[in-house]
C-alpha cells in the first residue's frame, strides 16, 4: 500500500497526474483551481518535468496541443471561464487526435459569475463544448480519493482513445481536504506513439499532425470513424455507482459534490422511514444508460439534483424516455442544495403518489 495522506483536492489532481507519468503541465491562474498550478510549479522540476504558466488559457491549451503532438502525456486545468477560452484548442486537439487531460474545477457562471462551486458547465463538457461533432470522455469525481484515481484513469483513457479527456470537478471538491490512499504502483498503460511529431531522424516518412481536411469526403470519413469510436466508448466505458436503489421510493440522480449531499438526504429519509437510493454517474459522457436500465424495473421516480438549472436532467429524461416521472431540484450561483430543501421535494414526490 502507498502513502496515506490528508490532502487538498486540487493538489491530489496534480500529484495523480505526476504518478500517471505526466511530465508536462501548462496552466493559468483562476480561482478555485490554482493550487494545481502551484503544486505543479513545485513538483515538476523535482521530477524533471515541465511546468509553464502560459499567458492565457488559450495559449495554455495550445501548448498542451504542442506537447501532445510531440507524444507526451500532458495536462492543463482551469475553471469555467478559462475552460470556455480553451474550447477552440480542445476542438483542434480532438480534430488532430491528440491525447490530453483537461481539468475543469467548475465555478458559478455565466460570465465572471462567482467563485463558489457549481455544475453549470455540464452541457459544455459532455455535448462537445467547441465546434464540430465530437465528445469528450468526461469523468466526475465525487471525493478526493476519486480525484486521484480518475486523474490517473483519465490519462489511460486519453491514450487508449487518442482523445481529450475531461475531469469535471467543482470548487468544493478542489478546495476540500480528505484522506487519500495512494497506490505503490500506478496502473499506467501508455502505448507507443509512432504518429507523434518527434523528428523523423531521417529514418521515416514525416508525421503530420493536423485537423484540417478540405476534401469533405475525407473529413466526413474522419468523422464517421470518430462516431464509430464513440459508439464503442458508450458501450464500454460507462462508469456509475448505484447505492440503496433496490426498492427505493425515489432514486436520487446526482454527481460530484452533489452526490455527497444526496447520501445525507438518504440518511435523513431513512430516519423518516422513507427509502431513497442514489444513481451516481461517474462518467458524464458516456452517460450511464446501463445504470438506468438496471434500476428501471423497480424504480418509481427519479429526482435529479444539480448545482445548475438542470442540465444532466435532460440526459436523464432522454434515457428514462418517460417510463418513470423525473423530478428536479437545483441551486445556482454557487448556492449549495440543502438536505432540508431536497427532503421537501421528496415529500412532495411521495405525497403526490399517495393521494
Amino acid at each position, binding site marked *: 500500500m502507498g502513502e496515506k495522506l490528508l490532502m487538498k483536492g486540487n493538489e491530489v489532481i496534480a500529484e495523480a497526474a505526476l504518478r500517471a507519468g505526466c511530465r*508536462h503541465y*501548462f496552466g493559468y491562474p483562476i480561482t478555485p483551481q490554482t493550487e494545481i498550478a502551484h503544486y505543479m510549479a513545485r513538483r515538476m522540476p523535482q521530477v524533471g518535468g*515541465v511546468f*509553464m504558466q*502560459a*499567458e*492565457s488559457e*488559450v*495559449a*495554455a491549451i*495550445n*501548448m*498542451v*496541443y*504542442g*506537447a*501532445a*503532438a*510531440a*507524444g*507526451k502525456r*500532458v495536462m492543463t486545468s482551469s475553471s469555467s471561464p478559462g475552460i470556455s477560452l480553451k474550447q*477552440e*484548442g480542445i476542438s*483542434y486537439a480532438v480534430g*488532430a487526435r491528440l491525447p490530453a487531460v483537461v481539468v475543469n474545477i467548475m465555478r458559478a457562471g455565466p460570465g465572471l459569475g462567482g467563485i463558489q462551486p457549481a455544475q453549470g458547465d455540464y452541457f459544455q463538457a459532455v455535448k462537445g463544448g467547441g465546434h464540430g461533432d465530437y465528445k469528450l470522455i468526461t469523468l466526475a469525481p465525487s471525493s478526493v480519493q476519486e480525484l486521484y484515481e480518475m486523474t490517473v484513469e483519465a490519462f489511460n483513457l486519453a491514450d487508449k482513445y487518442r482523445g481529450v479527456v475531461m475531469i469535471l470537478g467543482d470548487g468544493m471538491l478542489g478546495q476540500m481536504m480528505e484522506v487519500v490512499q495512494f497506490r505503490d504502483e500506478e496502473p499506467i498503460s501508455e502505448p507507443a506513439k509512432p504518429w507523434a*511529431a*518527434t*523528428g*523523423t*531522424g*531521417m*529514418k521515416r516518412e*514525416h*508525421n*503530420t*499532425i*493536423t*485537423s*484540417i481536411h478540405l476534401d469533405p469526403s475525407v473529413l466526413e470519413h474522419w468523422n464517421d470513424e470518430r462516431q464509430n469510436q464513440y459508439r464503442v466508448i458508450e458501450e464500454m466505458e460507462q462508469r456509475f455507482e448505484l447505492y440503496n436503489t433496490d426498492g427505493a421510493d425515489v432514486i436520487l440522480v446526482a454527481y460530484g459534490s452533489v452526490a455527497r449531499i444526496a447520501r445525507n438526504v438518504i440518511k435523513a429519509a431513512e430516519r423518516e422511514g422513507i427509502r431513497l437510493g442514489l444513481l451516481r454517474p461517474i462518467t458524464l459522457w458516456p452517460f450511464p444508460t446501463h445504470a438506468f436500465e438496471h434500476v428501471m424495473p423497480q424504480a418509481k421516480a427519479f429526482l435529479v439534483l444539480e448545482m445548475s438549472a438542470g442540465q444532466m436532467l435532460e440526459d436523464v429524461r432522454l434515457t428514462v424516455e418517460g417510463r418513470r416521472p423525473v423530478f428536479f431540484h437545483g441551486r445556482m450561483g454557487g448556492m449549495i442544495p440543502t438536505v432540508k430543501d431536497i427532503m421537501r421535494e421528496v415529500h412532495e414526490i411521495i405525497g403526490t403518489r399517495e393521494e
Partner: protein
Amino acid sequence: MAVVAQRPHALRDIPLHYCPGCTHGISHRLVAEVLDELGIEGETIGISPVGCSYNNYDYFNCDMVQAAHGRAPAVATGVKRSLPDSVVFTYQGDGDLAAIGTAEIVHAAARGENITVVFINNTIYGMTSGQMAPTTLISQVTTTSPYGRNAKDHGNPIRICEMLATLQGPAYIERVSLHDIKHIRQAKKALTKAFRLQREKRGFTLVEMLSTCPTNWGLDPVESMNRVKNEVIPYYPLGVFVDCEKEG
C-alpha cells in the same frame, strides 16, 4: 557539369498550391535549404499556421504540426519544451502572427523561447481573399479597407520586429525581403543564422520576410516585387533589430 541549384531535400517534391509569383514558394524553399545545409531536417518540427500556408505541413519533409490561427508560438512552445534538443520553427503570416496571435508571439519572445519564427509579412490576409491586416499600409486598399486604410478608423500598421526588439528574450530579430536576388540571398543568410542560434540554444529568433500577394494586391508578380521595394520597405525598414552575437 555539377548541379548548382535544385529543389532542396527538405522540400517535398509536390506542386505548391500558391498563386503564380507568390513569394511563399521562395520562403518555403529557403527554409528547406537551411534545414538541408545545417543537416537538421531529421530533428526539426515545423508548425503550420492558418492562412495561405496552412497546409505547408504537406510541403516540408520534417515532422509538421498544424496550429490554430495565431497559436503557432504556443504550440511551438509545447513541442520545444517536450523535445528540448529538437529544432522547432513556426511559419506564420501577418494575419496569424500580428493580429490574432500577438499575445502568443510577444510572450514566446519575452520568454526567450528557443524557437525560430519565420514571419511572412505581405501586408494583407491572403487566404481569405484580401482583407486588411495589422500590417496593411496606410491608404492601402483591401476588401475591408475599400477606401484605403486610414489611421483614424483602422489604426496604424504594426512593426513587429521593432516591437519585439524591446523585449529582453529575443536573441536575434531581422527583417529581410524577397523582392530580388540580392535580398533573397540576404534572407537566406538571416534564416541560417536564426536556425543556428536556436541550435546553440541562444533563445528566440525571428526573421520577418517582406513578401508579395499578387492576387490580392491586384498586381502581376513582377509589379508586386516592385511594390515591396518602393512602398513596403519604406514603412518596414530592413535590418537587424536584435543580435545576441553583436551585444558581446
